[in-house]
């Protein structure tokens, strides 16, 4: 015989586990609820939409590249706090960078999500470092990377276009 383990109704344990506190930092929730640079970019030179078919999250990333650097960036999308906050933060960090520099940042960010502690002291990542808590939730890494996958796809497409490899 086994009992359903005792759960005492009424005594709600509201202590937030550390892992959740690290995952859902105020900065992240702020970007989720007040996304930066969200909207359509009319004069985009680069547009790409990617989705995560398993969960339905969608990001459309729009860039205006001028004179070799990202002059304007916006996104549209829907999904969880992690995917949307990550996209919002991306727009802040890649502005003014060349595509190449943006992709370099994407590489660093990916390392951060896979638990590379060295990235925590990399200023280039800025507030993206608040997403380090995602590394404790492997199934959520793909959420944080969705917008960055857009960037990588654009980079690949640009490489192919230029023909220089």
């Amino acid at each position, binding site marked *: 015989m086994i*009992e*359903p383990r005792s759960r005492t109704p009424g005594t709600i*344990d509201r202590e*937030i586990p550390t892992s*959740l*506190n690290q995952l859902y930092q105020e900065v992240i929730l702020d970007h989720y609820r007040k996304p930066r640079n969200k909207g359509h970019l009319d004069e985009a030179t680069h547009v790409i939409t990617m989705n995560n078919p398993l969960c*339905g999250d969608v990001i459309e990333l729009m860039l205006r590249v001028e004179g070799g650097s990202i002059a304007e960036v916006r996104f549209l999308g829907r*999904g*969880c706090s992690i995917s949307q906050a990550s996209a919002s933060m991306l727009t802040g960090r890649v502005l003014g960078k060349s595509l190449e520099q943006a992709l370099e940042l994407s590489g660093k960010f990916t390392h951060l999500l896979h638990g590379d502690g060295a990235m925590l002291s990399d200023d280039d990542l800025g507030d993206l470092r608040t997403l380090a808590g995602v590394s404790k939730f492997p199934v959520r890494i793909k959420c944080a990377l969705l917008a960055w996958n857009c960037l990588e796809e654009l980079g690949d497409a640009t490489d192919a276009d230029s023909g220089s490899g």
Partner: protein
Amino acid sequence: MAKTAETAALTDTRHATGMLATGSPSAAADRGDSGEASEDGGWDLAAIRAQFPILSRDVNGHPLAYLDNAASSQQPLRVLNRVERYLREQHANVHRGVHQLSAEATEAYEGARRAVAAHAGTGDAAEIVFTRGTTEAVNLVASSWGDAFIGAGDEIVLTKMEHHSNLVPWQLLAGRTGCDLRFVDVTPEGTLDLDDLDRLLATRPRLVACTHVSNSLGTVNPVREIVDRAHAAGALTLIDGAQAAPHMLTDVAKLGCDFYAFSSHKMCGPTGVGALWARRELLEEMPPYQGGGEMISEVKLEGSSWAKVPHKFEAGTPNISGVVGFGEAARFLADLGSDAIASHEDALKRAALERLDGIEGLRLYGPRDERTAVFSFTYGDVHPHDLSTILDQRGIAIRAGHHCNQPLMDHFGISATARASFYFYNSPQEIDALCDGLALAAEVFGGIA
């Protein structure tokens, strides 16, 4: 219990000890669900839970509250033991050998067919075709019956609440044959619009294929009514029973349908196996689905003749151990009794509805009545994936996403819901755990916006 040794072999030692230790009368009194015994007519939840070893494990330091049963259910010791016994003592290929093991394996396999037939409500076991699951059962009908009897311009009526598995096979058939697909509308409440069905029947479609129970809304569709209207218009009917067969004994005769598809793994059996029930005369006139061994009567280089139903549709060596487990799951449910299962699930459903209704910011989808204990909801601006992550930290397993129901999500103008789906082994305490977990989510998000 005669199976003590087998039980111990398959049970984690820590929890096996725990089972004995917590079996005392005082622990039972502490459970706080003493009213349930009288309400459910002697339903001993603790004894039932004890048969599912996985239910006593911890997840992230909390007792597991498994509320993802609409995705897949857990398996009782009886099923685990039966599969193990088959593999240890009886395994050989079926329908082939003359030797003892092959005879025993064949008897185990065909015995399972009889048990599954009984669950579906047919006395003719030959009307049960084993498949890989509901998905393959629908694909079988779309390929075999569809390719043989459907042509350009023919109409097939589906509904807007179908799981992708009862949608995409028909889209593929439409691509092959040029037939047209029509969709019965869903009301704002989450039920089928039967007036819309009547409109679609006016052009005399060949088939109406719809789900018995919605996997995301929990809606129980009026299958008999739909079948009668379809038949009056000259259409055959296929019912996707994946979400119904686990909760109710299916009586295909009472439903009156022509095809009924369901899966083992949602009704306490193993994954990778399911069944198609079809009226015998339909199976007899349908061409084979796949070619190979087992499904033939005689093979010559110029051509072959087919085995009798159901073997005509079971090419190759089947998932024998899976089928054996499926059969044992059907017997297990029969022994529990569908009335007892329904009664306990109904009590859980009413209790959960009442609790969820009281939570500010929570929006529940689907009808109030004529539903199962499957609850799709959104909670303020906490995205379902975030909710699922937070609940998981409390050991609570729910599903988040579109539930293979993208057109239905579009219909409601949302991209995802959180879904808590209960089964007969769930406890009222797990409803409390869910509600406490929602309170935690509100805390993590600094309030529900």
